[in-house]
Structures are given as C-alpha cells and as structure tokens.
C-alpha cells in the first residue's frame, strides 16, 4: 500500500491521472467480485480515454520523458531508503490508515522522488541541446527556485556548465 501510494503520487507529479492506478483485493474464492472489479475498472479507464488525454494530463511525449526519468528516480537510493524508513515508522506506530500512509509519502518520499526525477529529466532535455532556466522549468514542471537547487550540485561537479541562464551538458561526463 505504501508502494502504491508512492507510485500514485509520483504519477500525479508527472502529470498522469493517479486514478489510472488501482489496487483492489479479491480472494481466490471471489470470482464474481473479481469480475465486478475488473468490469468497473475497465469502464472507468474507457471514460478517461487514452493516457495523456484525460483531465489535467500533460501530452504524451512529455509523459513519456517524465516517466522515463521517474522510473530511474523511483529506483534511486534516497527515495528507497525513505520508503524503508516510512515502512518502519508505520509499523512502529501501528497506524496503517490511508491518511497516515498518504501523509507519510507526501512528506518523506515524494520530495526525494520529485527532485530526483526533475534532475534526471533536466539532463535528458539538455542531452539534445543547451536550454535556459525558463525552458527547463516549463518542460519539467518545476519552479525556478527548485530547479536552481537541483542544478547547483551538477554545476559544481562539472557535469553541467552554466553561462548566465543557459545550461548545457558537459560532454564526456
């Protein structure tokens, strides 16, 4: 449930309707219930239409790039450690209510995944050509302040160079 909640919030962060991801329970003996769940879910998705066409969703090309970054972000060390820590904390408190999980994920895991995702995505965009801060903000959906903070270590490390407001990838690194 923690993983699903994390995926849900990460999807929402990438501009995908999080209702597209469902988690349901049906035991082996509950075939009729299973049929009901599947039928309901499929008709719900049919109403929403193809991915990228729903309300508040970003276009397909953007989704693809964002999710490609998000896959890597979800596997990065920091968000994973936080996921483990949150699971431990919930077990200690004995509170597995939806609110507790959702709040924990929003406070602890989402920020880590988001900054990881934006950093990776920015690099993907820069791979094509140098871009200025505003364009990067628009493409990744991050605020200027956030992006400055994420790009600073990369500039310091020398993997990304910065001239005024234009960022470019340093080749060979």
């Amino acid at each position: 449930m923690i993983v699903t909640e994390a995926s849900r919030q990460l999807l929402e962060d990438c501009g995908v309707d999080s209702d597209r991801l469902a988690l349901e329970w049906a035991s082996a003996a509950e075939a009729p219930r299973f049929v009901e769940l599947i039928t309901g879910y499929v008709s719900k998705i049919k109403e929403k239409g193809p991915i990228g066409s729903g309300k508040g969703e970003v276009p397909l090309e953007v989704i693809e790039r964002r999710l490609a970054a998000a896959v890597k972000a979800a596997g990065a060390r920091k968000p994973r450690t936080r996921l483990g820590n949150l699971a431990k904390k919930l077990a200690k408190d004995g509170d597995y209510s939806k609110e507790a999980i959702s709040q924990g994920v929003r406070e602890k895991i989402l920020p880590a995944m988001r900054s990881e995702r934006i950093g990776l995505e920015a690099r993907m965009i820069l791979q094509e050509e140098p871009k200025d801060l505003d364009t990067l903000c628009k493409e990744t959906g991050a605020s200027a302040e956030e992006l400055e903070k994420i790009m600073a270590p990369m500039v310091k490390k020398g993997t990304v160079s910065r001239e005024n407001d234009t960022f470019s990838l340093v080749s060979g690194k």
Partner: protein
Amino acid sequence: MAKENAVAKENEMAQEGFDPKILGFFCHWCCYAAADSAGVSRYQYPPNVRVIRVMCTGRIDARFVIEAFRCGADGVFTGG
C-alpha cells in the same frame, strides 16, 4: 471537405471503440486464482487486461508501475 469529414468520423470511431490497454499485476494466490475461477465458471469480463502474475502483491515496485505507464499502458490494475 469530404476528407475532413472522413477524418472526423474516424476520430469519432476511435473514441467510441477505444480499447484501453490495461496491465494487471495479480497475486498468484488471490486475484490470479480468482481470475482463473472466473474463467472456469464462464463469467464474462472485458478482455482488456494483460496479466502479469507475481508471487505476492508485495513484490510490486513503483518502478514496475511507472514503467508500465511509460510503455503506453492506459491503466494498471493491482490485484491482491
């Protein structure tokens, strides 16, 4: 004009006949068995779900879900 109409009609048809691609992660012991028994008892349900069997729902990772969407799935159904 005729071409435009044809395109509009095609779009309309595509909308109507939209076949969502849904990926299902089913637990071997629960939902997968339920799906199996639904099939055996000949219940009708939509054929849009492509199933991946996992040994436990706990095996599912955020990466699997995101990757599914990245590959063009319109929905992911996790069944425990």
